[in-house]
């Protein structure tokens, strides 16, 4: 009666054995890099945009393009120190699930034999999946997860190029200070953050920093992400009436906030979106007309025609039909730093790559993002990570702070929608 179970077990085992994906048939010299992103589920849009950006990054390394020679490997001849080897990307979907993130990282390492990994958007997945890389001794580049816990666990194999919470908070504080100097004093601030790891930790760090810098944080309003209604948060803001509001929100909520602002006719003088939701290209296409003058942090700026960033944006646009956004850009930058380190290592030996990553010393001119450079500390965090402040004007985010990088003058105050 129970033979079936034995048979099922055998069939299952066989199915597992034959089900492994076919090994890539590319050039034997290609260096494989695993890209681990949420390609489905609630963060699917952001994950797919980041994957596309990393693919453009690989295109930049593998094929020559005019105007990119300022970047390391920008000549487009593959990895010269590895005999011109091309980079082969292998993407995997973790669906925002930490356990699946570990499974996929393990599969990429042991089945696909990737040389290094990049990912994974949600901090929770990055946190869990990097332990797999650490145990297997494979370098992992964190392009954009900002949880401070990711580095600082004593891991040898995890490096992170992106700015993190304290960097963002420093940018907002500096921005407010300069606003005061321009005759637009900001005294009271409210922080509205979604209550998963991202919003909680970034919201907390911003509050700490602004309080230390003597701004009056009149409210911190946490809320559950992907909610059906945000009127209560907006009404609370209306009641507290702060000079500036900072949102740490994912896309769906950012869209609802702007719609609700209009519905309840609420216009604070400064509206800041902490990247994420505001940087999602969908934000501008859906509620751009309601959010004119909104402020965002971003280390990405398209730049003037002919510049390397302009060329990169053209490449990305040709691939996806959209402009590059900050989140995807930070992933592309992480990838380019990783590729440069593999090239300098001169081999796919993990220890050599790790040493090369640790010795990374790139200046601002060699980067496509607006970091001050890339140099890792002992924990693997980029010491020179930095972010600009941008403002929505029409359908473009333009850099307005710091003065040295500003493309246009700040429009004051937040206009929102056309009456």
């Amino acid at each position, binding site marked *: *009666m129970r033979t079936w179970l034995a048979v099922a077990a055998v069939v299952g085992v066989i199915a597992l054995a034959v089900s492994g994906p076919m090994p890539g048939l590319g050039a034997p010299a290609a260096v494989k890099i695993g890209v681990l992103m949420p390609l489905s589920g609630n963060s699917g849009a952001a994950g797919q945009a980041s994957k596309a950006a990393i693919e453009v990054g690989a295109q930049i390394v593998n094929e020559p393009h005019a105007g990119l020679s300022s970047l390391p490997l920008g000549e487009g001849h593959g990895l010269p120190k590895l005999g011109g080897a091309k980079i082969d990307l292998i993407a995997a979907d973790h669906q925002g699930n930490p356990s699946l993130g570990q499974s996929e990282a393990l599969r990429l390492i042991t089945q696909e034999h990737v040389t290094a990994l990049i990912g994974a958007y949600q901090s929770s997945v990055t946190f869990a999946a990097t332990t797999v890389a650490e145990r297997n001794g494979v370098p992992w580049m964190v392009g954009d997860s900002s949880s401070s816990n990711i580095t600082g666990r004593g891991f040898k194999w995890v490096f992170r190029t992106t700015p993190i919470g304290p960097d963002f908070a420093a940018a907002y504080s500096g921005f407010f200070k300069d606003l005061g100097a321009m005759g637009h004093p900001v005294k009271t601030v409210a922080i509205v953050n979604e209550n998963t790891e991202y919003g909680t930790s970034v919201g907390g760090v911003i509050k700490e920093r602004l309080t230390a810098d003597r701004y009056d944080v009149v409210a911190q309003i946490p809320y559950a992400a992907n909610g059906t209604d945000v009127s209560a948060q907006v009404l609370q803001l209306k009641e507290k009436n702060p000079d500036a509001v900072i949102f740490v929100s994912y896309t769906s909520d950012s869209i609802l906030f702007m719609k609700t602002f209009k519905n309840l006719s609420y216009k604070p003088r400064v509206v800041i979106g902490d990247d994420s939701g505001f940087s999602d290209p969908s934000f501008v296409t859906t509620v751009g007309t309601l959010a004119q003058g909104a402020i965002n942090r971003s280390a990405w700026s398209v730049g003037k025609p002919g510049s390397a960033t302009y060329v990169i944006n053209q490449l990305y646009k040709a691939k996806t039909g959209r402009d590059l956004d900050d989140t995807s850009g930070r992933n592309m930058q992480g990838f380019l730093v990783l590729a440069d380190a593999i090239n300098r290592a001169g081999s796919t030996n993990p220890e050599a790559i790790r040493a090369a990553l640790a010795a990374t010393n790139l200046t601002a001119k060699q980067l496509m993002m607006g970091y001050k450079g890339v140099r890792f500390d002992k924990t693997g965090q980029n010491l020179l990570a930095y972010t600009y402040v941008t403002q929505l004007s029409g359908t473009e985010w333009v850099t307005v702070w710091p003065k040295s990088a500003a493309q246009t003058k700040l429009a004051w105050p937040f206009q929102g929608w056309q009456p």
Partner: protein
Amino acid sequence: MTRPAGAGPASRDALAHAVGLRRSGWRWTILAAAALAAPLLLQGAFYHRVLALVVLAAISASAWNILGGYAGQISFGHAMFFGAGAYMPAFVYTHWHAAPALGLPLGVALSLAIAAVVGVPTFRLQGHYFSMATIAVAELIRILVSNWPLLGAAVGLQGPATARTVWDLTFRGSVTYYYLFLAVLAVLLGVTAWMERSRMGYYLRAIRAGERAARSLGVPARRYKLHALMLSAAFTAVAGSLYVVMIGFIDPDSGLGILISVEMVIVTALGGAGTLFGPLLGAAILIPLQQTANALFGGGGTGFTYIFYGGVIVLLCRFEPGGLLAIWHDRVAPAFRRRSASAVRHAA
């Protein structure tokens, strides 16, 4: 199944069962041997991990099956027990630097306490009302934990990155986990098989067939439902503890999210609810299906993983509503049909 839970048919069933068990002893042996040998036959760290995850899913689904399958009380809130088990090892490690293994009994105790408290109001409810109430309680707990700094709030808690002693249950490869999980599964199956043939098993099946009728025949329904819930909750908590020592990280979504509960239901339903082996079969098919579908199609980013996964489930239900077990009974093993007819009736 409208058969009254009288003593006559019951003892006849038990007799048939005992005979069946003895006769199928060699099949047990083959199954156990296959399970023990699987990691040797399937080399590779990724396969070992998938094997371990299959056994883990089989544990939580079998635990769910005690209440959902045998007693017919369909809970969509078992994540609360899974979470209780998953949070305790990380909690004792984070706050007391104690070995995560210590968290397992604490998690089971916590889970039993939750079951006792939750059972009182929810067991008044029938059918879908019970299901919805369990969702509500589980979501309530998830939201409270997401905002409770002691439990890491939204950020979650972590286990040790490298083992200090063996009691940290932190192993490099998945094979150790696989055998550990297998041992737990064997205990769980033993307990379930014993329960199946004890008075409790018959009472639960009578409750599933019709609670009012069972009660009028003198079955203390509320008490036995509570016993089933507690047994189910305890093993679900064990599954949670095993999950966290393997993954090394827990947050509200991965420990208490509604998808955790849904997966237990799906795995059990796919294999065949209310049977000893249904959850095992469901886990053995579904987990490799999930992992390979994701490995094959996930990287494309078109959502094809889920189209495939959803499509397989829909087709299965369309053509064989009784679950995989029914396919076996109806199509693959007609020779066994006569003897296994009673098992199919149980599944219905």
